[in-house]
């Protein structure tokens, strides 16, 4: 199989660097991870591409603050390397390792997270470049600590004043539809509130028809309740992630 372009052609517009203060949601489920999407957002932010549309050319590059509760630095580094981007902490990416340090789960709580992310953002913004803050798995704080939905929404709102935000959230049915325990009720309410604010929601899930060898899952692209995604088409596509990390995205039936 020929190697795939890093950004699938059908999604080239969706992976463009998100506008200032916008919120982009990536949702995933247990059997279908959104990590491949996130790596491609990293790629498109960090690599300077010649956009075919001249108006996009001016803001097609950004610096990134990557905050991850579920994955470590070497995972992201490896993922980006497969696309041909060498992530080094010094350059245009700041990585906050919340998996190793337990940032946000310990005494400091979410205020400490907000403080650290703001510090990192300010530092990257020094030379006037655009900054994207990626929060990978902030919903863990809601499930595993006393942090409330309101506190997370406040934190995201505060950060949006300084940067564009990309959030990953789990959207498994037991977390969204069961709504018996506080964990489930809070999670559903967080996902609902954030999707109302979001510019764009990219959701991956397993195929409804079962497991297939040549399809990894379905990708649903929808506009959220927020502004900023007017030019983007809402659609549902299938995708396949190969063993080498290459991704093919195609229409149903193609």
């Amino acid at each position, binding site marked *: 199989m020929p*190697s795939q*372009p*890093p950004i699938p052609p059908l999604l080239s517009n969706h992976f463009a660097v998100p506008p200032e203060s916008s919120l982009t949601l990536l949702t995933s489920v*247990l*059997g*279908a*991870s*959104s*990590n*491949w999407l996130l790596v491609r957002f990293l790629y498109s932010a960090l*690599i300077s*591409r*010649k956009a075919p549309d001249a108006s996009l050319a001016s803001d097609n590059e950004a610096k990134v603050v990557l905050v991850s*509760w579920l*994955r*470590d630095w*070497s*995972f992201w580094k*490896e993922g980006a*390397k*497969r*696309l*041909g*981007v060498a992530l080094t902490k010094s350059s245009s990416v700041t990585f906050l390792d919340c*998996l*190793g340090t*337990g940032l946000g*789960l310990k005494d400091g709580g979410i205020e400490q997270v907000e403080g650290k992310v703001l510090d990192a953002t300010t530092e990257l913004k020094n030379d006037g470049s655009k900054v994207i803050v990626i929060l990978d798995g902030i919903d*863990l704080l809601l*499930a*595993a*600590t*006393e942090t409330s939905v309101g506190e997370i929404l406040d934190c995201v709102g505060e950060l949006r004043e300084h940067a564009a935000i990309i959030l990953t959230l*789990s959207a*498994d*049915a*037991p*977390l969204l539809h*069961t709504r*018996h*325990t506080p*964990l489930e009720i809070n*999670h559903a309410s967080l996902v609902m509130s954030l999707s109302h604010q979001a510019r764009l929601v990219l959701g*991956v899930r*397993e*195929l409804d*028809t*079962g*497991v*297939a*060898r*040549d*399809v*990894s899952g379905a990708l649903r692209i929808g506009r959220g309740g927020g502004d900023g995604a007017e030019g983007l088409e809402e659609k549902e596509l299938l995708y*396949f*992630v190969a*063993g*080498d*990390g290459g*991704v093919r995205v195609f229409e149903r039936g193609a």
Partner: protein
Amino acid sequence: MSFRKRNLGLSSQNSPTSTSSSSSSQVQPPPPGTRPSPIDGRPITSTGTPSLDALSGGHGGLVLGNSLLIEESGTTDFAGTLLRFYAAEGVVQGQQVHVVGVPEEWGRGLPGLVEGKDGGRGTEGSEGEAEKEKMKIAWRYERLGQFGEERETGARNPRAPTPKRTPFSLSPSSSDAAAQNHQPFCHTFDLTKRLIPPSSSAPIIYHPVSPTNPDPFALLLSSLSNSLTTSPHSLPHRVIIPNLLSPLLYPFTAAHPHVLLPFLHSLRALLRKHPSQITVMITLPLTLYPRHSGLLRWTELLIDGVIELTPFPHDYSLAASETTKTAKGKEDEKPQGLLKVLKVPVLSEEGQGLGASGGGGEDMAFWVSRRRFVIKPFSLPPVEGDQEAQGDATKVDIDF
């Protein structure tokens, strides 16, 4: 421009995730009971059950630095059988085995090693021969078997990264490496025997869980972390957590999300911190913690691989008809339950679908006999008297 960069990425993708682990293994023989994955060269270790190893999406075993959760509904303990094979494999390979929450009797009841021509790789081979027709998932596993054998004879496998292999022949410890290559990757165990630990193996470390402490996991994490940092870097550890959250072993507070999830998060951090040193296997009773609860979903999200066992209820009419089959020498023909792969270590993180696991998306079932835990694609038997269907009943082929 983009074309050139893409090539750069492709040429360097064979190196393992952690650069530190690759550089350290270049000067040392592989740690006991591990071998490089045929896919990306990361160290893998056997779960003690060949057909479970085969469900790892081509890696051929559990990739070090990963955890596996086995969920089981009902009152049976098939998951415990997998756990015992996993523990016994660790003891035989000379890895450091940690057992959490259960008394020491658990460790004394590990299945015994099958010696002689039936043991070790020999059994893998004979098993493969006997099962050649039935075992449809075996193509991956058989390939891996060959991979291992080629390695033993010193032949170069072009699929495997060479930097890991070359030093074996160059380093002064090549005799050690050769000795280890003779050690099979996965042994065969007999559930009716008791394991006699080899003299060289480190004693199992038991981590008791206090049923009265509201946070039973606090001590566990620090002692695990201690043990990992104080032991030699090349010694792999296996952590076994049987019946997590079972009220027989854990206080009810352990099932509170604010206790359980931070523990699993820290365990995940520990695995990532020592990516070439530790594997974890956990079992959990589904009857008490059903899969449609948010707590269990978070548990599954925090663990790298998840497998669900659904044993069939015992059917006496089937048991009666079984006797005729036994006469033909096919006593393990009847599946004992369904097995579902919900998440595959490494592959799921990369976003690959479950179709990439060894099962290829087919319904899987398991059979347990005295010496084996076999996982195979499941197909319903043909209706009796339907000669035509009996001919090709095992062909399950769905095109998408």
